[in-house]
């Protein structure tokens, strides 16, 4: 922030900064007391970032036989960044990640919201179903990956169930078909992460004041009208939080997917994390990896800041 706040919003933020009691002397003491912690945080957060930035501007790879601090000997300026823009495989991985996100997160949201609505009321066996419902979240993602790997084999249970339902033998090669492999991967993600969505949304739903719901009913609102006019507005903040958490997590989708398909067949399920992993471990061009990771971090940060601003606005409104 500039010393002289320019916009109105900056002025508000500036005014909110508390003036230290006792003036400059107290401020200096405070600075000195928090210095060790600040140095530590700086080292943890800033050092890797700067190191990454440094390497991303070179052609350095771990097998070159020189330490990373001597990477300047392989300086190549912004070549990695220009390569990145022309990297079709990177763009298609990003695009694929976006598709997975746009399918999985809304599906998890809607399923979670539906389940939460169901669980907001009492019904027999609720506690048991509740425990069962939370189980997927507790399964180690690698194990879940292996589970779905087996489920989606051509001779696996998914095909057996489909055979039973259709009455004809079904032998779909789920994980070797480019489109179906992506579907299988998304099913696994939805299975594993709907419970988290459910849990967060249930917390929000329980927080909707019961008497306001009753008041709405007395004023003639039906169930759908109550949902739209009372429940959703009251849950706005928590919905934004739940979506933000899942969008960020889903963007990084890796472990379950990697065990199920390894990014294949071909590159059919290669998401951004899988792509970075492959470039890191197979191509070993770390300078380029650093450039990709940094670029994504910058883009995500911009998105996150935007989302957080909206969240703060929603919280004030709620």
């Amino acid at each position: 922030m500039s010393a002289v706040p320019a916009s109105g919003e900056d002025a508000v933020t500036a005014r909110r900064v508390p003036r230290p009691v006792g003036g400059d002397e107290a401020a200096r003491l405070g600075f000195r007391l928090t210095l060790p912690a600040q140095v530590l945080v700086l080292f943890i957060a800033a050092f890797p970032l700067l190191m990454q930035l440094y390497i991303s501007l070179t052609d350095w790879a771990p097998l070159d036989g020189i330490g990373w601090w001597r990477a300047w000997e392989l300086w190549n300026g912004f070549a990695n960044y220009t390569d990145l823009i022309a990297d079709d495989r990177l763009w298609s991985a990003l695009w694929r990640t976006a598709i997975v996100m746009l399918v999985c997160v809304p599906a998890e949201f809607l399923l979670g919201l539906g389940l939460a609505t169901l669980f907001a009321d009492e019904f027999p066996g609720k506690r048991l179903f509740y425990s069962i419902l939370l189980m997927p979240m507790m399964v180690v993602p690698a194990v879940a990956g292996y589970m779905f790997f087996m489920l989606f084999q051509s001779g696996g249970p998914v095909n057996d169930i489909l055979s039973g339902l259709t009455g004809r033998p079904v032998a779909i090669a789920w994980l070797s078909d480019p489109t179906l492999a992506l579907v299988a991967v998304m099913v696994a993600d939805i299975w594993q992460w709907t419970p988290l969505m459910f849990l967060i949304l249930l917390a929000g739903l329980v927080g909707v004041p019961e008497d306001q719901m009753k008041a709405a009913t007395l004023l003639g609102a039906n169930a759908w009208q109550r949902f739209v006019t009372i429940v959703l507005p009251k849950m706005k903040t928590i919905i934004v939080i739940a979506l933000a958490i899942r969008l960020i997590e889903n963007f990084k989708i890796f472990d379950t997917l990697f065990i199920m398909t390894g990014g294949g067949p071909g590159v059919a399920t290669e998401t951004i994390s899988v792509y970075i992993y492959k470039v890191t471990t197979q191509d070993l061009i770390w300078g380029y990896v650093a450039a990709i990771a940094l670029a994504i971090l910058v883009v995500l940060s911009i998105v996150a800041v935007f989302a957080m601003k909206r969240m703060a606005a929603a919280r004030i409104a709620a």
Partner: protein
Amino acid sequence: MSSIRLDNLVKRFGDFAALKTMDLEIADGEFMALLGPSGCGKSTTMNMVAGMEEPSEGRILFGGRDMAGVPMGRRGVGFVFQNYAIFTHMTVRQNLAYGPRMRGAPKSEVERRVAAVADLLQLGPLLERRADRLSVNILQRIAIGRSAILEPAIFLLDEPLSNVDAAFRAVMRTELKHLQRQFRQTMVYVTHDQLEAMTMADRIAVMDHGVLQQVGTPLDVYNNPANVFVARFIGAPGMNLLPGRPAEGDRGLVVDLGPLGASPPLPDRLAAAARRHGGPLLYGFRPEALELGRPGLALPVTFVERIGARAVVHFGDGATAVKGVFANDVGLAVGETVTLRPDRGSVRLFDAASGRALAGEG
């Protein structure tokens, strides 16, 4: 507008009978208070009238029409919740417009009705304000306006003043009574505060332990309690009740109060009733209706509470404890023994076993 009839109403939650039985007629345009300590079944009764809960037995009739199976949104009932249940995420205007909007009223009509109600309740300047962080009396007006806009036949109010501090409550009571006069609706008002019931209601239904104890005008309930519960519950402090038996005195029938000796002679009407009854009695009189220094009950002063304009004086203890209310400059000191005589007209008799009043009306 509509009358309400509760016909043999019963509500059980599992084995617990929240409302054992209730028969009550509320006239069209009447302000009826349901008064009783917490857990007496008054809120349960109200919730059943609103349709929030189904009766276990019995019927609820609005103007002769059975309400069984009519959902709460269709009963034509306005409900003001204890904490008002204002939609805090909306503006005052959106709160007022909620009912008509949900019922699909055309936009122009909604606007016209909101304007009318806002005008009546003096909410006009606040219409665009968000409904959170408004003062309690404005919240109350929104809550009433939000229901009133639908022109309900019946208004139900569930302890609307219990979250308000004492000083403000008096202002709110006046405002509420004033609003009722404007809307002219049948109002049912649930409260545990007898002052609210006394000051606002046309009639009071006193309840205890899921049973209706007495229905009557505020003065009637105060002057002629139907039983010991009402006698003790109404009034601050409640009626004094001393155990005794009827006995013949020199100047007519008296009540032998055991260690306290004989009461002053009973008025004729009560004497006749006591003579017919013959058995153990409770001799009741209002703390406000005591004369000091006249021949009567001799009791020591045990405690003096000075509460502003008046002083509550405690006499005796245990079974012979009596409270009296006097002007705050009353010259009584703890330990001093005085004689008290209940005002003849204020004396009431109750059957010691059943707690019922003898010869009710005075």
